[in-house]
């Protein structure tokens, strides 16, 4: 006796969220059945393993048939094959595009290419995320990357509209796309402690402040038509302008003046004052050098590693608290405005605003 065929089709497509998650997580049917049994479905409902297997198979088939539609979520809403209430559709899409932070952390900043895809089994082994799930997540990244690559307009908005994702998820994907596009180095050992959410925050900062799209709305309107990836690429003009900041460290007077202004402001406000005073020139040189080198693509990639090496590590070795860092950076930024000979206030603010929030986000254990 063998069950040759066993199907169950509802007019409204029946989908069990628990099974959906197992499917997304890349469980095989048998593993899923086991997981469900351990989950206690059978206890709360009197059923045999056969019933569970049959149900799981049905659901898996349904998901497989739906997967094609989930690749372009807009289709899910106006396709006719499956009748799925809107709120269920939203759930399906949101879950399908959800990803594991551990996994995304591994591929963040890598080229979304076939080569990377081949490494997925290593990543799978390392992160404990099943290979199937890794592939789905990777394909999602790639798919979204490909779609928004060709689109004009704000990145987050594009993602949200084309993939019908929640704002949070759309922002995360924007970060992933942004990282992949600029190929930021995130894999170095020194950067391991930084979580995906930290990076996503930083990406948001960069997108909102350093890209072409970030320039004031009115100004942007005219540029919109010409610039392809307004949110994905950093503003080249801005990067050029950053070179001007070099005076802050090359001009000896300016450097001293800046230091004394900062020190005056800081004195008595922190226990780490001595270290701050001692390290000022070093730190300032570090930050300004990062700024001036950003015209090179290679140095853009190293942006985060530079931040860690040039600023975060020295501070940490001097046992600055997060509050110390914030205090220091605030005064460091503001004091530059008082410098008479320093003419690049706008660029400085645009640069330091992002640096400040990035460092603050990244400054933890």
């Amino acid at each position, binding site marked *: *006796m063998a069950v040759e*065929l066993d199907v*169950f089709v509802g007019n409204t*497509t029946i989908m069990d969220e628990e099974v959906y998650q197992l499917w997304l997580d890349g469980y095989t049917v048998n593993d899923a059945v086991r997981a469900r049994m351990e989950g206690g479905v059978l206890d709360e*409902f009197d059923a045999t393993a056969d019933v569970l297997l049959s149900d799981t198979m049905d659901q898996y088939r*349904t998901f497989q048939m739906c997967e094609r539609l989930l690749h372009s979520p807009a289709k899910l809403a106006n396709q006719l*094959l499956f*009748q799925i209430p*809107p709120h269920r559709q939203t759930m399906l899409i949101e879950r399908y595009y959800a990803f594991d932070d551990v996994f995304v952390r591994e591929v963040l900043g890598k080229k979304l290419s076939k080569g990377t895809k081949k490494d997925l089994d290593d990543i799978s082994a390392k992160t404990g995320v099943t290979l199937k799930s890794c592939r789905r997540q990777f394909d999602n990244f790639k798919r979204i990357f490909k779609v928004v690559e060709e689109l004009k307009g704000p990145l987050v908005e594009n993602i949200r509209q084309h993939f019908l994702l929640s704002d949070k998820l759309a922002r995360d994907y924007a970060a992933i796309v942004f990282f992949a596009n600029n190929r930021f180095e995130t894999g170095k050992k020194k950067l391991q402690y930084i979580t995906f959410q930290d990076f996503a925050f930083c990406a948001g900062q960069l997108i909102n402040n350093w890209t072409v799209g970030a320039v004031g709305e009115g100004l942007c309107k005219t540029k919109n038509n010409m610039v392809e990836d307004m949110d994905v690429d950093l503003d080249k003009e801005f990067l050029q302008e950053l070179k001007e900041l070099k005076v802050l460290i090359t001009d000896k007077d300016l450097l001293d003046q800046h230091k004394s202004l900062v020190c005056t402001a800081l004195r008595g406000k922190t226990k780490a004052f001595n270290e701050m005073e001692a390290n000022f020139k070093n730190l300032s040189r570090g930050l300004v050098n990062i700024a001036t080198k950003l015209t090179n693509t290679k140095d853009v990639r190293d942006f985060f590693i530079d931040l860690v090496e040039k600023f975060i590590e020295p501070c940490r070795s001097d046992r600055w608290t997060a509050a110390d860092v914030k205090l220091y950076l605030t005064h460091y930024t503001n004091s530059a405005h008082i410098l008479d000979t320093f003419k690049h206030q706008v660029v400085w603010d645009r640069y330091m605003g992002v640096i400040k929030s990035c460092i603050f986000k990244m400054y933890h254990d």
Partner: protein
Amino acid sequence: MPGKLKAKIVAGRHLPVMDRASDLTDAFVEVKFGNTTFKTDVCPKSLNPQWNSEWFKFEVDDEDLQDEPLQITVLDHDTYSANDAIGKVYIDIDPLLCTEAASIISGWFPIYDTIHGIRGEINVLVKVELFNDLNRFRQSSCGVKFFCTTSIPYSYRAVMVHGFVEELVVNEDPEYQWIDRIRTPRASNEARQRLISLMSGELQRKIGLKVLEMGGNAVVGYLQCFDLEGESGLVVRAIGTACTLEKFSSGSASITCPHPSTAPPSNACNSPKDGKELVFGEELPLSSGPPTPFRALPSSSSSPPPFSPSKPCSRQSSSSDTDLSLTPKTEEPLSVRRRPGIFLCPSSPILSADTLSLPGSGPAGCGHGSAHRATTPALPFSTQSDSALLRKSVSFTEDLLLAASGMGSGGSAGKEAGPLKTLLRQQTQTTLEQREFPFFTLTSFPPGFLVHVGGVVSARSVKLLDRIHNPDEPETRDAWWEEIRQEIKSHAKALGCHAVVGYSENTSICEEVCILSASGTAAILNPRYMREGCLDVGSIDHRFDDPSPPNCGFCHIPYDELNMPFPAQLAYCYQCRRQKVPDVLFTTIDLPAEAAVTGKGCLIQARLCRLKKKAQGEVNATAISNLLPFMEYELHTQLMNKLKLRSMNALFGLHIQISVGENMLLGLASATGVYLTALPAPGGIQIAGKTPGDLNNEQHVAAIQKRINDAIAKNKELYQINPPELTDEGVGSPIPEPRQRSRIFRSHSESSDELSELDLSHGKKDAFVLEIDDTDAVEDIHSLLTDAPPPAGFHSCSTETMPGIYNWTSGIQMFTSVRVLRLNNTNLTNQGLNKIFTDLCENLLKSFYFKLRSTVPCCLCHLNFTVAVPEEELVQVSVTAVAMTFDKDQNQEKPPEKATTKGGSETEDQLQFPLELSADSSSTSPQPSKISGVAENTIVSTRAVSVDYGSFADRCSTWLELLRLKAHTIRRGSVKTSRRTQSLAHSVSSLEHCSPLPEGRSRSLCSSRSFGVGSVTMVKMTPLSFLPGTRIIKYLGIINMFFIRETTSLREEGGVSGFLHSFIAEVFAMVRAHVAALGGNAVVSYSMKDCVLMENPNKNQAQCLINVSGDAVICVRETDQEQTTNTGQTCGTIDGAT
């Protein structure tokens, strides 16, 4: 030129990539109707083309409009090679031909390809302009409305019910034509789909003509089936009930009604009390129809003794002529046997199959028959001495039409029978002949319409298929059905009934053997309805002078007590105490609205497998017809046992299917068991050993007896069956004869010491005896006890709704499930097979419960199982059903409604209602302890072996007082509750006034029109005739679709399961799309008629055919204003399904 069909192709979307190079498609569309074809421009390089074509106009006969579908083909333009077809859409334009149905078809249709499935969608607009046609001889029947619904459709009232209409058309199956060898599978499939579409169109048109001839304007309970006879052809046949329907606008009807005398009908739907006066009657004098058989029937029904064949001469001669010409050798036994066969086989609804009486009737039949085969059907009854009761009339026509496949014999047969048949067919056209069969495909009726119900009548016949030589003259098939219907009719007569309700027909075909089956419920319909038509005033007051109260009348026996066609065990009605009722009642109809039911009902299934030797031709057919009576008998015994085990006494919606395979027969009977308050309490099940001396055996018997008794007790509790048996003596109604009385008490004593006293003689036997000496019986008992009850929160039934549940919420989930089992073990025994088959069905049910576990409390309604043996070792079971949620807390909402509407005629008899009500409430929600105490006591008393009669009666009367009091308070209380829910519902619904939105109660089930994101209308589907919580405001036409899907890459599509899963999903999608395009938002009375799956995994191939039908409707949520009246309406719909 009576019609102009206009079509416009707007756009396409999600088209498949047809050009690999560009990853795009150059699509254009061909629009074809009849022989005319139009083309759109090519929309180059787009997967979402915008054609926005002109209006293509077809000027056609309305006859063609009815027959032909509009055929839309989407193609990919190719400059150099032939254009590739992407897929097709067939649009049935019938709904547009009816002024009251849809006026335009507009929407997105899935583009369907028989090889690839759905490939994108196309937006189409279709309109029809009909010109007035005054041609009296026209062949079209535009305007006749068709309904699959087996009750008077909602918002209509039946001015007249004309009766049975049937028609069949035959053709060669394109799959078996020579050309099929040289064409692609796609072309073959499309030819088949198109042909079937044409044939169903033609069939519908022909039926429509018959209806017009009868003076009707609609067909209700339209049931169309395909017989894929393989080599011998393709038969499309349909039956239905012709009616004259009148639409009434629900709100204003009662005010604007022109004739005060007909007021009740017009506001029928507003209040069940005076409504639902669907007047069934003969034609008005102005129509030229001859006198109706109805008028003649009540008088004639009694005149012919049940045993005498009373067929019209012409019929008789024709059928025997067929036999004569085709089977000269067996002519004698055949023609004689068939008639005795009617009662030789247990043709009784209430045949109390006593060991003593049955052998008597058996030989009697044999005497008549004098044929070697004739004795076989009687065999089980004479040899097996257990006293199972057969309550159905069953018969087997074994006339094998041995016309063989030889051209010669077939040809000669045609020649001989030809002229006569033609004559016959012409006669059939006349209204007189039309009324020959007083059959109704309806399953629910307005209160008072059914006077008495006799029992199930059914007939089966095994035929050998031969080639249909002349598709225009399908007499052979006609004659086959004719015979069967005659038999049904005479069975009904034998039961003293003049009509058959809940009538249906089906076939099972394996190779060249075909089993034709028909079944229905013999009944007596209210003669007043018949005679006086819609003009009577009497229809209102009839209920006052009606001898039996309406809520138990239908249970009363229709036949003469002294002259019963079979030995039966009768008792006085437990409600009115005036009329006799049988102890068990089997019917194919839904539970009448007025019926009083104790407790809840449940699904009861009997399953059976019988092995059969492989054989060919006549031998095979003989073997099958020899097996049939045994199967019917065993199925019946199983049903009986299971019914008793659940302590119930009636079956509704009984459907018995016998499927034939090469080496086995499968039998499946499904029904909803209930405890009818009017019928006596069923006795228990007695286990008897054949050798009483054996101590071991005795112990074994005792053990089994205990298990059974426990099961019965448990079931009583589960289904809340606390029969108010105490009213027996308490009410002071005519007390049954002493014997009956003792019987009642005896039934409670099932202790084993009674065993020896067990009297098997007629009249006293109430306990059901099972002998367990043979293995069969052990098997029976085993299967009895292994049937698991549905898990907590679930109910299941095969009828439209579950008796005992009234407060449905709007959550529904329709589903189709198919399971195929491969029997690898070649040396299977009958027992082994039975076990496998039973497990298959049980496991399916368990799967449903599990899958739908999030929707509890819910009821699986209209569980419709279909079995088939597609290949030698395969068993296929397909199920379509709907899960409906209900509100557990308001269990009492309905009964009070009922009670108040019936207020006027409420008598002592109706105390059962409140009583049942209180029993109900006590077990579902914490109620005053006194009542639950009563309920408990009731159980105790029914089971107690020795109850002191005196105190018993005393207590009874006090309880009665108490109950009456409680009933009133409860009634008031719950009316309040229902009001509150109304206002609640109001606050919700007023927001979405008039939009077809269900309340978002159960999220997983709830479907709603999608806002914003989605442009797809949510379409609900249900096999029932109504949608809970909504009101059907318009019927848009019948949906009748046939699809073929084939694959040559089975593995790639996920095996057979993957293949069928996507196909079923596609069929649903196409049904929904058509309904949405008609402007509808739901399908009611949906059913999947056929699901034929053929697979060849070795070749990586599979093919599947699916036929679905239903009624497209627009329904709206019940809004506050109508809510007050509508609660009644819904209830009416629920029980009356009117």
